[in-house]
């Protein structure tokens, strides 16, 4: 099988996954990805056009919760791990829309 991922697709995938694209490592990463995709590619040989995908192993249905407020919010506990937090806000570098 031809390599499915080339450097251009690796850049795109990295962007989608919010991971850095590291040119010095790209050869190794490409090899690793294409190796996995070749392994995975074994499933392409099966004829499965009539089969419905199975997203959940147990084919059950969702139970629904009553509309009540149950969460007591301890903001100090929830924010204790925040790297940059002030006045109740989590901060990121300025977002330009």
């Amino acid at each position, binding site marked *: 099988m031809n390599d499915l991922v080339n450097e251009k*697709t690796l850049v795109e995938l990295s962007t989608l996954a919010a991971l850095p694209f590291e040119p010095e490592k790209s050869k190794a990463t490409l090899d690793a990805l294409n190796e996995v995709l070749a392994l995975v590619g074994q499933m392409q040989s099966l004829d499965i056009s009539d089969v419905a995908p199975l997203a959940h192993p147990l084919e059950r249905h969702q139970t629904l919760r009553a509309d009540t407020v149950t969460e007591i919010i301890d903001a100090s506990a929830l924010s204790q*791990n925040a790297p940059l937090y002030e006045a109740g806000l989590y901060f990121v570098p300025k977002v330009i829309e």
Partner: protein
Amino acid sequence: MNLNFATLTDLQKALRNRDVSATELTQHYLTRIDALDPALNSFISIQAEAALGAARRADERLARGDARPLTGIPIAQKDIFCLQGQRTTAGSKMLGNFIAPYTATCSEKLADAGAITLGKTNMDEFAMGSSNENSYFGAVHNPWDPKLIPGGSSGGSAAAVAAGLCAASTGTDTGGSIRQPAAMCGLTGLKPTYGRISRWGMIAFASSLDQAGPMTRTAQDAAILLEHMAGHDPRDSTSLNEPVPNFSEDIGKNIKGLRIGVCREFFTEGLDPAVERSIREALAVYESLGATLVDISLPHTPYSVSAYYVIAPAECSANLARLDGIRYGHRCLDPENLQDLYQRSRGEGFGEEVKKRILVGTFALSAGYFDAFYNRAQKIRRLIKEDFVKAFEQVDVIAGPTAPTPAFPLGEKASNPVEMYLQDIFTISASLAGVPAMSIPVEFANGLPVGLQLIGNYLQEGSLLQAAHQFQQETHWHTLTPPEAL
């Protein structure tokens, strides 16, 4: 009584008879951890003070005579279960300093039943790995031979129990992460039916596959622990609203007439002949116990690894997106802009294997590849499930090897990812189908533990535990312990 390798049942009795106090027992394990764990690296963190505090309270309870089933029993928990106010890392630099603001449901249930948590065990980063070499906190060594891997991803949980550093432990299994390390460390490990144990508070790898379970010395111990981990949880929509049977009481029944399916596809080329010999030997024991062996086929098994390495990475690519360095977790220094914050924080926080799987999953879900990869994998998943449904019309339990080889040397497969992925070739199909499966120790191969995998029908953990228990009544492999001099 040798406390090092005592079973839960032994310890329950000893604590009730006041042969040993919970404090003595806890201190005993803490001392062993101090002495032995530097060579094993099975723990990421030790909660000595909290454990001794819990032990004092357990002793008061025992003195009052109102002990709960696990009162005073020291266990270890995989560092993937959140414990409120304690560090929970998932084996990652990304969560290296993460203090959990809540407790995993199954950990809470164990605590409610009286169990004492000694510490959090090492694991492959975000449970991605089969050798425990992918931990930010360093590799774990196999107590049977420290040059060998303990299996993964619950490698720390397996090594800690095998080395007698705790009475039992919790693990999680996405494609074999309880069963394979149990096999390699000579333990009993159970992955229950998907949904049997709540996933609330358990850091997700692949949501539709992840399942917690016990890692113990015996099937009886696994039954006891499972009873106190399982049960419906409204906080987990995928948790099963089914009664939890009294597993530990039901395992004593004999297994005459039990139909054991021997799956052809589990005896393939990659299977180490020594492992195969041990498995065949174990099957013969079952026959001697009155079970019938039935030759069966699970024809789609050869595709399970392919399907798994699409589905699990796809789900993890989304599950790990929340780790962005904003609300918690590793954040890079002085980000230039938002993209830089994301990319550098994630680039620095995640290890290579995790990044690779995120990229594979991103690819499998991306426009143009979704049908050929993600959707196709989910179709194969249905075929694999149907294989099991058909097989269980014929047999009660399916048996085969847990892993193709015994434990291998650290570093051996690190450079060969595909070979590493094939470690899970026999365990993955039960994960994809969501059926329960366990591994028990059978005849050793070249002095190393070998695991027999037993796979059951949906919700039939009871049959598995019964079959495992009856085997352990006849054999001594589960009683063997590693050489003390590590």
